């Protein structure tokens, strides 16, 4: 639990708020599918949605696997005054989030964009429509925001086609996949996604959640939401291990991967463990030519939120030192309930250069966006 916040309030916010920041995880929602997304969705799929609905790959459950800690997983103060879901009103997002925190670069991650939908053609059509919607309703209206190329990741060929179609479009900063997939994300069936992303010079962001259909922890289906919340750290470790050991980074040395919303304190320990075991089992995976940590150190980034809040807080700084300050991208997860406030997220004694890296320079480097 975290908490040495009262004493630093007097000095911290002013300085931190003035600094231009990048927020690498913002969740936009359509005000209405009919009004905002249908214009980009073929009639056939509009009727399909109305008749059959969306069937995710998780048994017979609709929506997320577990109920959330707040309605719609959102801050209770994030509902736009003119109605609609949190994250559905650009003006309110500016007023509540982008302006007061001086967010100069915001990465949009639409989470209900047709990913993980069992009907593959429907999934591809929905993803394509959500990508058009991001341009029409968000990035063309607000230059501080950049979209994600949402792809139907269970169909890698369709995903690669969507990435190729968006390549070079500066409305998009990255390709988005989710962490819970039909198979671990390093496996061959997904390789065309990474190859297309590398061709398009777009990083691939792996956002927590998704619809793999498997238990949300490594040990089975848990009883409580809190177990799902901390389970993302396990899932991210499996995703990253799969990517490294299947040799994606060795094959695609320009590929950049960003792990979003799974925390980060687990990363140093995973890298240590992988390196140790790799020295003993190297001949099992000879295509992995270097120590696993060296690929992670060069081609993998993680977003900060939800930041671990150890006590004493200096342990957080130790953890970041072990990862490298150049690996971490600040993110708020706005408008979701586990939002991190940029004025509070780092302990007070972090230096100016490290703050700049954490809040902006790392993001500009990974997205190739100059200020």
């Amino acid at each position, binding site marked *: *639990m*975290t*908490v040495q*916040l*009262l004493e630093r309030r007097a000095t911290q916010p002013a300085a931190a708020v003035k600094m231009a920041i990048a927020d690498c995880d913002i969740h936009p929602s359509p005000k209405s599918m009919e009004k905002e997304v249908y214009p980009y969705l073929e009639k056939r799929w509009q009727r399909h949605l109305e008749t059959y609905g969306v069937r995710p790959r998780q048994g017979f459950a609709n929506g997320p696997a577990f109920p959330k*800690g*707040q309605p719609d997983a959102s*801050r*209770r*103060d994030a509902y736009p005054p003119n109605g609609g879901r949190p994250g559905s009103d650009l003006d309110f997002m500016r007023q509540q989030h982008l302006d007061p925190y001086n967010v100069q670069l915001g990465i949009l991650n639409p989470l209900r964009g047709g990913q993980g939908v069992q009907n593959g053609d429907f999934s591809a059509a929905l993803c394509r429509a959500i990508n058009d919607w991001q341009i029409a309703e968000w990035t063309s209206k607000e230059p501080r925001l950049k979209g994600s190329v949402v792809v139907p990741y269970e169909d890698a060929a369709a995903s690669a086609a969507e990435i190729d179609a968006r390549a070079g479009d500066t409305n998009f900063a990255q390709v988005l996949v989710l962490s819970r997939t039909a198979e671990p994300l390093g496996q061959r069936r997904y390789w065309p996604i990474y190859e297309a992303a590398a061709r398009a010079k777009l990083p691939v962001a792996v956002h927590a959640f998704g619809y793999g259909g498997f238990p949300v922890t490594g040990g089975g289906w848990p009883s409580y939401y809190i177990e799902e919340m901390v389970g993302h750290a396990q899932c991210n470790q499996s995703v990253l291990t799969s990517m490294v050991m299947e040799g994606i980074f060795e094959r695609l040395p320009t590929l950049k991967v960003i792990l979003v919303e799974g925390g980060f304190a687990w990363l140093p320990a995973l890298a240590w463990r992988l390196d140790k075991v790799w020295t003993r089992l190297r001949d099992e995976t000879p295509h992995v030519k270097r120590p696993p940590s060296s690929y992670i150190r060069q081609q993998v980034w993680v977003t900060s939120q939800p930041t671990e809040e150890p006590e004493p807080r200096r342990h957080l700084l130790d953890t970041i030192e072990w990862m490298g300050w150049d690996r971490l991208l600040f993110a708020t997860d706005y408008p979701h*309930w*586990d*939002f*991190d*406030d940029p*004025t*509070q997220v780092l302990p007070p004694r972090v230096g100016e250069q490290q703050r700049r890296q954490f809040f902006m320079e790392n993001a500009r480097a990974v997205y190739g966006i100059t200020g």
Partner: protein
Amino acid sequence: MSRHVIAATRDLPPGGRRVVTIKGRAIAIFNIAGEYFGLLNRCPHQGGNLGEGRLIGLVESGEPGDYRYSRPGEILRCPWHGWEFDLRSGRSRCDPARIQAKCFAVRVAPGEALGEGDYVLETFPVTVEENYVVVEV
């Protein structure tokens, strides 16, 4: 410390709430079944607006499978991360000794008494027939 008149009681009925700014500080005022409570409108964890939090009861458990729900409406849950605060003390449920929301005394004063003493009237007229909600800041 000064006493600020922020509303007529009929404008802040049971179940009502209001955020007022006094001396540059945003303060969330709640009427819970006729009792008034005031908290700084800023969560001591990361700064969420407590005035937009949900009022819940106290859930306690002696052991797994055994739950008790009491004090309905007296626990405020931050709209961001769900930290719970006891409206009567400002103390957080998870770390009551160290994490506390700042409380302000709120009481009711009759209109006729407001002419005496050092009440600060912010922006509205007062009549002797009515009662008023007063915050000490």
